[in-house]
């Protein structure tokens, strides 16, 4: 069958050759691919740290007296307290700053955004390359942290702990500062590109919803990230010059740091989830072969989330001693931001109604997203409500909620996007069977890992605890939950490790991909797989991105064609 596909003689992968032609390319597609490789490496690094944390927490460090002789799979204590503190800190910092934040916008946004607009590249290709190099420099700083002194502040860098610890806070802060600029450059580039480079006929409301997601994300990147930069710079100034800003010893205010930090880091949560929601809008419609339901509500909800997201940072500080009035206002605003997310979920479900639903691997990820993000979103209500937050704040309930949103939401959408655009990026099809095996393992492993954590949390198990023996003495089920959670994380890890195996195999021996293997109506499916160097030889014709009525399956090429 492969011989039926007219292969382009030249594509972006073969256009020029050699390492330099990659490192200094201005091509958005190559930059996207290099982002993808870098970010996946960071994901692996952060994942190893997570496994270390779960291995340590598999058993309470001291067994209850009654079962002192019980056999365990691993030693009760696999590392020292300080090593544990460094492990969870690096897990958080690497996952947040190097995987989740840049993940979808930088890797898939870069690759897809210009093609979806029918353009040849982003508005500022050199700025785009600069942002990739900044990511690499930031990564180098984190590697320096890893090799020298490590970091034990938690990814949140809370003062005054972060101004008094002896670990390598300065390089870590410098790394996060540089990564912030990488993020700002990408956001700026996307805003300008979407404003100025849309093709004739593509009005704002004819844009694919992924672009609305990226647009909302870019707004936050440009407006919020500078605050993180300033905060981290102030922290560095305090540590180096002893200027009193956050440390009460020097006349500063530690709660001020929390305000500054969350003023960025809460909107940053939406940097992480908005592009993921955009991807789900694409996947649901393409694999249901059906028009999106309520386009405008979904588009506006992205912008509403981006704007409201700026006003809710204080919900991280309900127990910090902030005033009752402030807590009340932040609680109200927090609930208001849950509405646009709910609208999106209902609209996705309605979009599937009377569709023709294919369960190809990317769609499995989209369905898994709705399931897991549903749990993540609903458990957020418990933490946004003031009364229940007083009990659940800083417990594993929060840890589980966060992972349901960030892994169950963003990382699952990332994997969905990877499987959706892999044929476009590489020109090869992977094994759908192994793809779905991985989906099942990830789904089972993830839920086994994190559902028990909700119950640990409601019984008081606190985050960042090295030893929970005393809690397990009072509530023996906490030990059971931790064991299930650690075993679940192993299943999750196995599921994730299957993915690179079949993806790499597809590069070697995979079937050549048709231009449109899934039946997408957005422009990137009109150019060949992989796309030619300049994307489109001539300006493509723009239509409704969700009109599938004229896209039909062609057996000869095992792909879809426009009729």
């Amino acid at each position, binding site marked *: 069958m492969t011989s039926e596909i007219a292969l382009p003689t030249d594509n972006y992968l073969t256009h020029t050759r050699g390492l330099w032609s990659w490192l200094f390319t201005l091509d958005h597609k190559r930059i996207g691919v290099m982002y993808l490789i870098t970010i996946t490496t960071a994901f692996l690094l952060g994942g190893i740290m997570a496994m270390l944390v779960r291995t340590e927490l598999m058993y309470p460090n001291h067994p209850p007296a009654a079962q002192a002789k019980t056999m365990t799979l691993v030693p009760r204590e696999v590392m*020292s307290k300080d090593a544990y*503190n460094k492990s969870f800190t690096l897990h958080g910092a690497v996952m947040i700053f190097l995987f989740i934040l840049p993940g979808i916008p930088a890797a898939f946004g870069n690759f897809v955004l210009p093609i979806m607009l029918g353009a040849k590249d982003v508005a500022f290709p050199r700025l785009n390359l600069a942002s990739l190099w900044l990511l690499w420099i930031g990564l180098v700083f984190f590697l320096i942290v890893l090799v020298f002194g490590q970091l*034990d502040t*938690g990814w949140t860098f*809370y003062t*005054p*702990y972060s101004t008094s*610890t002896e670990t390598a806070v300065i390089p870590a802060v410098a790394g996060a500062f540089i990564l912030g600029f990488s993020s700002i450059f990408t956001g700026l580039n996307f805003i300008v590109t979407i404003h100025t480079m849309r093709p004739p006929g593509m009005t704002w409301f004819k844009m694919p919803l992924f672009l609305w997601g990226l647009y909302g994300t870019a707004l936050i990147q440009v407006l919020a990230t500078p605050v993180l930069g300033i905060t981290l710079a102030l922290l560095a100034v305090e540590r180096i010059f002893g200027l009193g800003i956050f440390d*009460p*010893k020097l006349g500063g*205010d530690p*709660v001020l740091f929390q305000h500054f930090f969350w003023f960025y880091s809460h909107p940053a949560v939406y940097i992480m989830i908005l592009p993921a929601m955009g991807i789900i809008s694409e996947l649901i419609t393409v694999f249901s*072969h059906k028009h*999106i*339901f*309520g*386009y*405008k509500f979904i588009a506006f909800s992205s912008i509403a989330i981006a704007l409201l997201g700026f006003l809710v940072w204080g919900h991280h500080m309900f*127990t910090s*001693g902030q005033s*009752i009035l402030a807590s*009340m206002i932040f*609680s109200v605003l927090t*609930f208001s931001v*849950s509405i646009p997310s*709910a*609208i999106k979920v209902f*609209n996705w*479900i309605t979009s*599937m*109604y009377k569709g*023709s*639903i294919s*369960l190809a691997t990317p769609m499995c990820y989209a369905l898994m997203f*709705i399931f897991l993000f549903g*749990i993540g979103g*609903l458990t957020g*209500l418990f933490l*946004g*409500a*003031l*009364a*229940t937050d*007083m*009990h659940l*704040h*800083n*417990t594993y309930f929060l840890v589980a909620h966060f992972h349901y949103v960030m892994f169950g939401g963003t990382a699952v959408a990332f994997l969905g996007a990877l499987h959706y655009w892999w044929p476009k990026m590489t020109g090869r099809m992977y094994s759908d069977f192994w793809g779905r095996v991985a989906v099942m393992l990830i789904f089972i492993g993830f839920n086994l890992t994190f559902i028990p954590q909700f*119950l640990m949390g*409601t019984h*008081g198990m*606190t985050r*960042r605890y*090295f*030893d*929970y023996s*005393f809690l397990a003495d*009072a509530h023996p*089920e906490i030990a*059971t939950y931790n064991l299930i959670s650690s075993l679940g994380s192993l299943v999750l890890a196995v599921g994730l490790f299957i993915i690179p195996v079949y993806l790499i195999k597809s590069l070697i021996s995979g079937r050549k991909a048709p231009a449109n293997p899934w039946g997408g109506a957005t422009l990137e499916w009109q150019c060949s797989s992989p796309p030619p160097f300049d994307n489109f030889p001539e300006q493509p014709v723009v239509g409704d991105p969700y009109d599938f009525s004229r896209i039909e399956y062609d057996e000869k090429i095992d792909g879809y064609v426009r009729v």
Partner: protein
Amino acid sequence: MSPFAEWINRGISIGLFAQAEKNFWLPEQASTFAPMVDKAFYFLLGISVFFFCLIVALMVAFVILYRRRPGVESQKTATHNGLLEMLWLGIPLIIVCVIFYQGFKTYLNIRVAPANAYEINVVARKWAYSFTYPNGHVDEVLYMPADEPVQLIMTSAPGDVSHGLSIPDFRVNMDIVPGRYTKIWFHALEEGEHQLFCTQYCGTGHSDMRTAVKVLKRPDFDKYLAEAENYLKTMPPEKAGEILFQRRGCTTCHTVDGTRDAAHVGPTLKGIWGHEAQFKAGPPQTVDENYIRESLLEPSAKIVAGYPDQMPTFKGLLKDEEIAAIIAYIKTLK
């Protein structure tokens, strides 16, 4: 019962209405807040389970009903429906308003203490608490009277980091910040013992920062306070020193039986009296009264070789006769 059957049993009880196993969702209710917070929790749980089941049921139903089959096309349906969409904007909006109101009402109760609350001052340091009672007595365990409001006025020791204080059985949780006071109050229902621990990450010993809440009947509490006030005068100094060693949290980091393990950050104190201590910098010194006094008040002045500079100062927190008692106690650790 075999372990396997026990697991199955536990698995069955993990149903939504798993009231059969007491405390499946939440721990024991030991304060007046607990029923209020739990009511809000179960209300939210009901709403969440309902909407989650609705979403997943629709999703699964659509995937089965409209699965891709050869020869069957997707059908055109409306691409938007303003009324329907306003409906699922409006209904969640009303529900979250109710949730907010319920949460806020209880929160006000938790944050605003009644005027007649019994006040206890709390100082948190790496990695212990000290509770100071109105009569000046200091303890590392929180003793409190049952069935009356008690307020904690909390701060971190000068130069220390932020900590937290959580008593899950009471459903309270509050940060403790250096340089400012945070407050929390509660009304314990009856006498009993509960766990109290730190919830704000504070470094190496974060998970060791825990103690007990001992709720006593009012007469027992008064008796405890009266005895506690006088123990320095009534007891032999080495006995009083041992009590102080417990109550000021020294045992978090120092063992007295010669054990050296990862759980204890500081050196063991067994047999140090009269020995020559080796330091990171400076000449060695024999452990005597002056050295111990200095180690308590200026712990960073001399760091024992092989240990981190982690000990907080007790300057202003120990009276002279208390230091004398601790010295007397350390002398007995042979």
